[in-house]
């Protein structure tokens, strides 16, 4: 069996190269055709490979060695591809959801300048993401890891002429680099102690260690890898880049900053389960970080006005759930939620994009409302997604979130604290999502009431891009202005090319969870069984215990499930009460909350704190102390001081200062000649 997995990432790379090098001269239809064709081919190849692999019935992974990347001494890094049930799920999500978002983007970006550039970056992202999930070793995973960061940087800064977009891109890259730094140290530890970065070799070497052996080392490695995951998957304390990443075009937020790239950290932890399983301390840290992030981000999401910011904090929070699941060693639950989240969060962002598109660039929910009738397709698909994320049965999110909460409670690494925080977060999630839903689609349209839009929170979309876009980038936007620069009356449903992906994702948001219905609800939990060969490999007897739940004592899975549904219902009712039934209530609530509201509204001032504690002192120190003080003052002062002293002793040197270049050049040559003659004389003696 040869699946030629290498083609799966290389196809989108070819698309990126063609559009990047030639796309400027292409008409838009050709750019779109190239981008879609290569992504579709990649998706079909992935499906074919998945079917072949599944038919093969092999329990172990399918590994494909492509070439040697580098080899020094006994260390070797390969270009290799690794297909097992875990990477299969990821590969299908990335190519499938990725393709849908490509389709949607054709409609969404049609009127923007830099159309070819956008699809070049998007295809490039697909290449790196597939390199990441199909990697057969940590170094190649790191290639994809940094590469998706690059694509993210380029796409966040797509509207690069806006300062905020440029700053957000840079911030994303640098914050991710902090995570990459610890990730690299994790890799160095692996090289030092295991001599390889190859998944199969590392895990089998760890697998044969007796239980309890090398726990300190494995804990250190796990924590270093976790640092990387905190950067990429936007966990505390490195989550700060993700909300700002919303500066990118909305399809980018859907693909990269919700459905795929940000889940790379979760994937990486799941992939490294052999390490984490043997480092219970590290698992505890993972669970705490995930849990804290889930709650923390959800509280910020409660009060945001920008529709994309709500979704951004929601993403951070949902990623926290997945990380929590990893932390209680329930990797298949994490992957299950990763998959359903990819469906419904991508849909939420695309739906939000459709809303923004309909309103000609408006992102502030205070200027929305009553859109239910005007954009019914968008409304209904968003409704599906909202129900899914809120955890309403039988939508996808219900099953995956339920699974995580149950594992958080019942796993050997779990605790009722994790469960309770998860439950509260579920309630908050339901509240802020229905708040978004009511504010956007119900009540009266409020767009006309605010004539002075705040500059922040508006995506410069088509209509207003034309004014500020530089020549060559907004050229097309100018012609689009006529079609888009209208107010409420012009609210219009998006074209079919944008709606079809919405509908497909809406269906997936409903049925996507049915593959993992737990036994207690009459299902077969196929998803977990599907992934079981991955997560049971390399585990020792003592550590597989958490994978088999069903403790006889304590509350049953069913009652916990009911509690979660109850929390979602409370969230919904509260949102309905405050934002629909008695809309004046939320204004009063804001005043009541006073300081607390201010804290949430300012996102706990985390950005400000980081700026004051890290960024500004570092720049100040570098400028005042290192550069002006040490470099110019101490070191150069000493050098020039001694030079001056020497000059005062020497007439010839003073003569050289006359400024006559030719005479100076002569002196240099003469001096060098003297040195040579002297040298030869010394040698001859």
């Amino acid at each position: 069996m040869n699946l030629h997995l290498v083609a799966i990432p290389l196809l989108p790379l070819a698309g990126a190269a063609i559009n990047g090098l030639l796309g400027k001269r292409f008409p838009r239809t050709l750019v779109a055709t190239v981008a879609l064709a290569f992504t579709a081919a990649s998706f079909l190849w992935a499906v074919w490979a998945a079917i072949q692999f599944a038919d093969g019935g092999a329990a172990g992974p399918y590994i494909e060695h492509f070439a040697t990347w580098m080899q020094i001494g006994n260390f070797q890094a390969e270009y290799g591809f690794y297909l097992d049930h875990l990477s299969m799920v990821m590969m299908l999500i990335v190519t499938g959801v990725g393709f849908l978002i490509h389709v949607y983007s054709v409609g969404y970006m049609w009127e923007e300048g830099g159309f070819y550039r956008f699809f070049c970056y998007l295809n490039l992202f697909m290449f790196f993401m597939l390199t990441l999930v199909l990697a057969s070793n940590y170094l190649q995973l790191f290639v994809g890891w940094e590469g998706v960061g690059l694509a993210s940087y380029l796409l966040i800064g797509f509207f690069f002429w806006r300062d905020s977009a440029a700053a957000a891109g840079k911030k994303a890259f640098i914050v991710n680099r902090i995570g990459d730094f610890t990730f690299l140290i994790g890799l160095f530890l692996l090289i030092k102690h295991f001599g390889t970065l190859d998944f199969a070799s590392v895990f089998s070497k760890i697998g044969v260690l007796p239980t309890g052996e090398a726990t300190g080392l494995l804990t250190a490695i796990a924590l270093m890898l976790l640092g990387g995951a905190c950067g990429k998957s936007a966990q505390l304390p490195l989550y700060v880049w993700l909300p700002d990443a919303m500066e990118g075009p909305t399809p980018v937020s859907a693909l990269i900053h919700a459905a795929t790239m940000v889940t790379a950290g979760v994937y990486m932890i799941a992939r490294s389960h052999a390490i984490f399983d043997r480092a219970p301390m590290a698992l505890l840290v993972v669970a705490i970080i995930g849990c804290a992030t889930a709650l923390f981000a959800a509280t910020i999401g409660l009060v945001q006005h920008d529709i994309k910011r709500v979704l951004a904090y929601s993403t951070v929070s949902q990623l926290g759930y997945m990380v929590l699941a990893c932390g209680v060693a329930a990797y298949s639950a994490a992957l299950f939620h990763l998959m359903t989240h990819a469906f419904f969060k991508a849909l939420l962002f695309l739906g939000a994009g459709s809303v923004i598109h309909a309103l000609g660039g408006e992102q502030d929910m205070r200027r929305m409302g009553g859109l239910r009738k005007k954009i019914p397709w968008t409304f209904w698909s968003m409704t599906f997604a909202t129900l899914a994320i809120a955890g309403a049965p039988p939508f996808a999110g219900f099953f995956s979130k339920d699974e995580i909460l149950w594992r958080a409670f019942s796993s050997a690494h779990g605790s009722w604290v994790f469960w309770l925080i998860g439950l509260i977060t579920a309630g908050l999630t339901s509240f802020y999502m229905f708040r978004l839903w009511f504010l956007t689609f119900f009540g009266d349209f409020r767009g006309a009431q605010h004539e002075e839009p705040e500059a922040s929170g508006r995506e410069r979309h088509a209509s207003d891009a034309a004014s500020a876009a530089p020549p060559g980038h907004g050229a097309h936007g100018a012609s689009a202005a006529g079609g888009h620069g209208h107010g409420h009356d012009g609210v219009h449903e998006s074209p079919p090319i944008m709606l079809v992906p919405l509908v497909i994702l809406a269906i997936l948001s409903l049925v996507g969870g049915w593959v993992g219905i737990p036994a207690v609800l009459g299902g077969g939990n196929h998803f977990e069984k599907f992934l079981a060969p991955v997560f049971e490999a390399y585990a020792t007897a003592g550590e597989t215990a958490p994978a088999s739940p069903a403790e006889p004592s304590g509350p049953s899975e069913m009652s916990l499930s009911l509690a979660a549904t109850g929390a979602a219902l409370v969230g919904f009712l509260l949102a309905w009460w405050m934002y629909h039934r008695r809309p004046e209530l939320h204004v009063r609530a804001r005043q009541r909350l006073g300081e607390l509201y201010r804290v949430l509204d300012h996102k706990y001032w985390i950005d400000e704190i980081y700026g004051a504690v890290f960024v500004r002192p570092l720049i100040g120190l570098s400028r005042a102390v290192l550069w002006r003080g040490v470099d110019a003052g101490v070191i150069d002062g000493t050098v020039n001081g001694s030079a001056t002293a020497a000059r005062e002793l020497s007439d010839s040197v003073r003569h050289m200062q006359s400024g006559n270049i030719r005479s100076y050049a002569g002196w240099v040559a003469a001096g060098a000649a003297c040195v040579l003659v002297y040298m030869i004389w010394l040698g001859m003696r």
Partner: protein
Amino acid sequence: MTPTAIISIVTFLPLAGGIILLALPRGAENAVRRWALFVTVLEFFAAAHIAFMPGHHFSMSGWAMEENYAWISTPAIRYHVVLDGISLWLVILTAFLTPLCVLISWRSVHDRVKEFFFLLLVLETALTGVFVAFDLFLFYFFWEATLIPMALLIGMYGHGRRIYASVKFFLYTAVASVFMLVAILWLYAHTGSFDFTVIQPWLRSHPEVAAGNAGLWLFLGFFIAFAVKVPIFPLHTWLPDAHVEAPTAGSVLLAGVLLKMGTYGLLRFCVGLFPEAARAQAGWINVLAIIGIIYGALVAMVQPSLKKLVAYSSVSHLGFVVLGIFTFTAAGTAGAVYQMLNHGVSTGALFILVGMLYERRHTFEISEFGGLASRMPVYAAFFVFITLSSIGLPLLNGFVGEFLVLSGAFRDRAIYGILGASGVIWSACYMLWMVQRVFYGENRNPANALLPDASAREKLTLWPLSAMALIMGVAPMIWLSSINPPVEQILKNVAPASHMAYVAGGQK
């Protein structure tokens, strides 16, 4: 060992071309330019084809190619030149960058054109000679010979404070070289030879010298000369001045090749001849290297001048090379050699890019720019690409070198690897912040409103560099397969076991 004349041909071809160039009539400036381009391109093919010559031995241990003739009988100076996997690629790097230097100087140099290209060709011969010379006298000759054309290029064709920078460059490095000269003469006095292949075995067989006090002083004599050239913190302050004042071609060769003379010397002579002393002194040298990595990056971050920023980034990048050399691991050393090549490509390209901006606006001040990506999209794309190679994005060249160096350093001592690896954060900070300020945002300065995008000639210089950055990142084995054997040979001498043996021998 293949006896062949190709090394001499490659070494002296540019000089010969330069002498012919002098014969061209004054005023025929385009002919001068074309001739210089022809010679340097020919030189590139001559050098590059060595790597692909059938029957070469670069992937095996030992000196792959050499030429060895008696030159002067008393003192016993030999014309002994050698190519192995390390020097081969440094020679090719030199030959790769020089034609690009000719291209970028096509318009920017309009006074004394003939002298300029003559100096450039002389410099190329001198640089090539440094990397192939295996007779210490010959090495010193070429070493000093690089100074003169370089100082003249800065002094005659530089910007505002060129005289100051030129004198500083010359004095700094010439003074430091004297220490090396003393060490070389000491060795000659005791061995009766300047030949590396005589001196090295002699030192092996005289452990009381190599591992004793004399060995330490000899090591330090070489080390100072090389450390200034690299430059290692705190001997680096000549570098920003020289770079800022130098013409673009000067900066490219200065950063791309001249600095590598220092790191090459450290590896070939400091470590190659005095492994015991190198090992004993590695601690503080590595500390200085790590300070260089972090300090260079932080100072680069706050530079208001684009060219100074790139210059300080060199201090940071060369810190990786020194760290790699003095951690004595296969990965670290091979990574250091690779990083030398990377730095030549990436930083050379950055200086070329900065020079293109200077040709348009006659300033290096970052605050003068902003939003250039709208006006100059192609130029901006090249710039960002090279930036990514410089900050070590995987699949581009910088990553391979940095990763190997750091994994080697970590294996030697974890803290070296950790502190060094923090460089990946700092480099992203200073480079991306600079890119943001120069290229992104709105174009607010009216002086930049009409800047032309990269011209065909400029693209012709940038394409090879970008392609090289990509190939070196994707397929490093092309280089590493011939870098590994000489690295292993050097490390064999530094192995701790032999170190212990020689220390014991020295005590008896």
